[in-house]
């Protein structure tokens, strides 16, 4: 219940965050919402109420820090905007090609 309420709060502040951190250059409202949702779903298996409360508290803390600009733009970008590269997680081919795919 607490988690759901917190999720709604986060969604309510997303436009604000979007403008504060100038995220509309990098992403859209929808993708941002999606990635927030994914973060919540990652912890869907947690059933212990106390644990949930602690996590919501931590999340709230994070939200407040974000709203007060105690974090900087690149923190937000690396944590919530840039999704990890699926190609990078794959086991790379060996030798020259691996290096070639990775960088110059």
């Amino acid at each position, binding site marked *: 219940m607490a988690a759901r309420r917190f999720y709604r709060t986060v969604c309510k502040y997303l436009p604000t965050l979007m403008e504060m951190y*100038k995220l509309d*250059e990098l992403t859209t409202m929808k993708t941002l919402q999606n990635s927030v949702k994914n973060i919540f779903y990652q912890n869907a298996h947690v059933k212990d109420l106390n644990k949930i409360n602690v996590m919501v508290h931590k999340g709230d803390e994070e939200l407040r820090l974000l*709203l007060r600009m105690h974090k900087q733009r690149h923190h937000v970008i690396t944590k919530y905007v840039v999704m990890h590269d699926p190609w990078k997680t794959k086991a790379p081919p060996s030798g020259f090609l691996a290096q070639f795919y990775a960088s110059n």
Partner: protein
Amino acid sequence: MKKVFEAAGSILDGKIAEAKYIHPYMFKQAEFVGEDYNGNKYYEIKKGVLYGRHRWFVPPDIFEYSPASVPPEWHGWLHNINNDAPSRVKFLEQSYKTPATTYKYLGYQPKGSYRQKMEFGRKRNWKKYEAWTPPAPAKA
């Protein structure tokens, strides 16, 4: 009292917090003067308060508002430039008046401002080079 704490806990403008929660008696004595097209409500107390605190406005959303949302006709009354509120006496617009554009960042923005190009749907470009865009496919 609970309201006060709630308000203090969130980000609330000092003027509104005072008018609405810290000295709520003010509202009881206040006279409602009018409302503008942005939904701001204007109040006045003629006696019993310090000069300078006798006219104020309450925006529709007290958590998210801009003082710039006060239109010029109300601005004059609010700051004691005019004696009469536009709801009582018709406000004469100046012949050289331009539309009030400051609200919603339509007005002048300095060079390099994040908001400068936002209204036109454009975005800042940090790229130091221009990439080639492939031509549109030939229609067969």
